[in-house]
Structure formats: C-alpha cells, structure tokens
C-alpha cells in the first residue's frame, strides 16, 4: 500500500462523497424543515436514473436528461407532499409508513416500466476520458461529479444564507411554530423543500447512474447510506450534509478497501453512536 493507493482511494472517496452530498442534502433539508423521515428518498434517486434513461433512449441527449429527470421527480415529490403527507399531520410513525408504502409502489412501477434489467447511463464521450496528474489516473467523470456537487452546494449555500427565502427556511428548521407566528408560510416552505429534496435526489440518480448503474433494489441500498450522511452531518444543516457526505464517502471507500468484512459496520456503528450521544447529529441545529 503506497501513496498511490491512498491517493486513489481518497479521490474515489471524495467523488463518491460528492454524489452522496446530492442525495443527503435534500434528505437533510426535508428532515430539518418537516421532521419527516422520508423513506421514499432512495426511490427518488432510482426513479431519477430511470427517467433519465428514457430521455436518453428517445432523444439521445444526456444533457437534456439531467433537468428533465430532476424536474419530473421534483413534481412527483410535490404531489406526494401535497396530496398525502400534508393532510396526515404530525405523526412520525404514520409518515414513515406512508413514505415506505410509496417506496414499494414506486418499486413496482419501475419494474413494470423499465423491467428488472441492469442499465448504465452513458455520459458523453468527452467525460469518459481520464487525465493524469502526478502519475495518478483521474477519470474526468469523477471530477465532473465533484464539480457538480461543489456548484450545487455553493448555490444552495448562497440561497440559504443570503436570501429572504433562505432565512425563512432556516427559521422553519429552528422553530416551525415561531416561524408561523411571525408570518412565514411554513406550508409553502415545506412544499418547496420537498420539491428541492426530490430534485437533488433525482439529480444524484442521473449522475450516479453512470458508475453505480441503475437496477431494481438500488433505492433501498441508497436510502440508509443517505441517512448515514444526514445523521453524521446533522439534520437540517447544509454544511453538516457536506461534511457527512465526505466522511461517509471516504469511510465507505477505505472501509471496503482495507477491511471489507466489516465495511458496512464501520459505517453504521458510528451513525448509531452519534445518534445516541447527540441526536441532532454532529453539526445539527439544536
């Protein structure tokens, strides 16, 4: 195990972390604003990938597939929130069960529409090359993933910290009742955040589909990892989601490379410990 090994694994871990940031930041915001444990978040990821596949098959354009998939799934998310979750009121157990009921429905729908085969989303040729930096082969696609996550993260941060809208969201995260009291329309905020969360998860699905593949069961594989990101980072905090994604991405890569037999254990055990000690996560807002 030389420097090359460590650098390559670190790079892979960071780029995987970039993907996890897309999935985790949405989940974290949804949890922060609505206190909903959304078990259909993994389905948004998978459905995003599938919709992108359909767009690519019909139009041949990968670039077009990204916004179409993300917006379609955002619409699905809004419909779910408006029609089913909002009228349910606040009961964590019923919310969880409802979202999981939907996850099962989405699973079956995906099987019917896109069959049970494994697919890959092929990015344009320009992104499939590698560049060599100091003797390391760095796939351009992974660099693209890191770039996308950075850009999205930056935009989200600007919106959250610098705009009135963002201030309203932060107020809702901190104390929804108080926010309503000062005239913030928390219902509208919830809808927007749910749409944003679904949008980001689907975006992750399109981008991640190139190296994870798109296959049945990916939804429930991605879901707990996204939760690990949210919990380690802290619920409802963007910076937390970024750190959580990086930690989980690196832990996952090094865990699988160094001690494969306990690699998932090394991911979820810290998650449980953090929850036991500080339920809001390492960087969560109190």
């Amino acid at each position: 195990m030389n420097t090359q090994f460590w650098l390559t694994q670190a790079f892979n871990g960071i780029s995987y972390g970039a993907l996890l940031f897309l999935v985790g930041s949405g989940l974290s915001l949804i949890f922060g604003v609505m206190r909903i444990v959304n078990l259909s978040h993994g389905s948004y990821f998978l459905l995003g990938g599938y919709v992108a596949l359909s767009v690519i098959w019909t139009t041949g354009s990968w670039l077009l597939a990204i916004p179409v998939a993300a917006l379609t799934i955002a619409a699905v998310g809004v419909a779910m929130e408006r029609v089913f979750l909002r009228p349910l009121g606040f009961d964590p157990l019923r919310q969880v069960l409802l979202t999981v009921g939907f996850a099962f429905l989405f699973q079956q729908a995906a099987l019917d529409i896109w069959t049970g085969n494994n697919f890959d989303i092929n990015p344009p040729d320009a992104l499939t090359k590698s560049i060599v930096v100091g003797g390391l082969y760095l796939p351009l696609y992974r660099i693209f993933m890191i770039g996308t996550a950075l850009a999205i993260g930056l935009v989200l941060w600007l919106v959250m910290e610098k705009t009135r809208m963002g201030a309203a969201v932060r107020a809702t995260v901190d104390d929804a009742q108080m926010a309503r009291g000062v005239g913030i329309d928390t219902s509208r905020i919830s809808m927007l955040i749910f749409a944003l969360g679904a949008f980001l998860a689907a975006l992750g699905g399109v981008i991640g589909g190139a190296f994870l593949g798109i296959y049945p069961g990916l939804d429930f594989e991605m879901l707990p990892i996204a939760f690990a990101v949210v919990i380690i980072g802290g619920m409802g905090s963007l910076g937390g989601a970024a750190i959580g994604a990086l930690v989980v991405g690196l832990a996952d890569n090094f865990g699988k490379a160094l001690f494969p037999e306990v690699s998932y254990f090394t991911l979820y055990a810290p998650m449980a410990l953090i929850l036991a000690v500080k339920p809001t996560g390492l960087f969560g807002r109190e």
Partner: protein
Amino acid sequence: MKSQHIKVLIVVVALAAIAIIIPNTNSFVILLATRALAFSILVMSLDILLGYTGLPSLGQAAYLGVGAYLTAILATRYQFGLGYDFWLVVVLGILFAAALAAIFGLLAIRATGVYFLMITLALGQCAWGLAYRWNSLTGGDNGINLRARPKFGIDLANEVTFFYLVFFLFAVSLLLMYTLVRSPFGRSLAGIRERELRMKILGYNTWLHKYIAFIIAGGFGGLAGVLWAHTAGIVSPENVVLTTSVDALLMAVLGGAGTLVGGVIGAFIVFGLREYLSTLVPWWQYALGAVYVLTILYLPTGLMGIPERLRQRRAATANREDVKKMAPVTS
C-alpha cells in the same frame, strides 16, 4: 361474560380453526401458513414495543437475523441443533438476540419519536452490514443453506409436523406476550406510551421499563429467527435488511398496533398477498402498496380497530337522532 373474555375466546377458536384446517390443505398453503406464523412472532415482539410501549423500532429484523444466522451456522458448521439439541438452539437463539437487544437498547432507549426511528434504523443496518459483508461467517450475499430440519422422535422434514411445531411455539409466544402486557409491568408500559413524564413523576423508572421491554422483544425476535431459518431453509442478508424490519412494522400497523393478534392478521394478509396473489397477477405489489397507504390514511388503528370505529360511528349517529327527537321539545 366480560368483553375481554369474549375476545380471548374468539382468538382461541380462531387458533384452533387454523390448527385443524391448515394441515388438511395442500402443501403450498401449509408452507405459507408456517412462514406467516413464524414471522408473526417477530411482528408481535415488535408490537410490544410499538403498540404497548410507544417505541416504533425500524430495526427489529436484526433479532430475527441473530436467531436465524445462529441456527444456520450451528447446523451447517457443527451439525448442532439437528436432534434434541434443537431445543438448546431455541434457547440460545432467544438469549443471543436478547443480548444483542441489551446492547442496542443501551444506545437506543434514551431516544424518542423520530430519533428512536433513526437510531433503530442505524442499529439494524449495523446487523445487516455484518450479515452482508462478513463472508467467512455468514456466507455474504449468498447466505447459508440449511440442508436438513431437525429430527428428534418426530421428523420435522414432514411439513405438517413442522407446521405443528411452529404453531405450538407461536401459541406459547402469544400466551407469554399476552400475559406480559396484562401484567402490572405491561400496564406500566402502556402508561409510558400514554405519557412518560407522568409515569416518571409517579416514581417509575421509565428507562428501565423500556429497556426491559426492548430486551424481551429482542428475545422473541430471536425465537422467530430460529423458526424462520428452518422454515425458509435459507438464511441471507435479505432477512436482516431494512425492508424486512419495515414489513414487520407495516404488518403490526395493518392489523392494529397494541393488540398482538392484529400483527398476526397483518402477517397473514401480507404473506397471503405476497405469495398467493403474486402467483395469480403481476400487479400484486401495487395491491400491497395500496393496502399500506390506505391503511395509514384511513385506518390508523388498523383492522382490529374497525369494530371500535363502527361502534363510535353508531354511537355518534344514535346521539344525533336523540338530539333530533328532542329538538321539538326544546324549541
């Protein structure tokens, strides 16, 4: 007769009917019922937490996994538990699962509401991660195939004999759990579910109550696992995965949380839909998903709650008619 006696009588009659009718059907139905009964023990164990203590666990499959993997590893590696020592495996399965619950409980019990959901999810994932990745012990993704069922005087390879064994242990579990929830300890659990702060003020050690309930539920989960291993003949990470925990939760809610037998009804409905309907129509999973969504939206108290809801509705209408009758007098 008190209404509670009538309810117990109905359950006993229904169980007797199952014990008499099922063995006389075909082997498909017998296997289906055996699976549902074995899994029902897990669902009932979860109901002790969910329905009686107010702790919705998203990681109950971990205990099923401990029991099942223990059974499979002992049987395939050491040829242990295939004769009279099967009963020893039953005891070990319960103890190991209870021990795991004792460890997990230390971390989880303090959390409430959404955080309890999340932490049990994380703990369940720990168990799944080990089952999935620890190839040398668990066989990884492929799992472990059990070649034979135990034989001691009776031959459990015979599906009717095996059905009776599972039925017997199921009935014992139901009786024990029913006794538990009707005991003073069970009453305090319900008190904690309704209002934990008040129980604390009354001097109850609510943490210890919840912790003990968690361990007991884990033990029953282990028993379910031992039986599940021999029922299915294969143990794999599929048994420990998040969706298995969620299934158990949904079955409990579908039947009606806080009723024990509700979970059994839920298990039979879900297993029926999944394994029977799936052979008939391709859209069975839509039916299952729709059943879940509709139950949560319109039947928060589950199927067992229907009679109560009907009674309330009838009372409400009767009330309204009384008011109408009185109306001319008062006006």
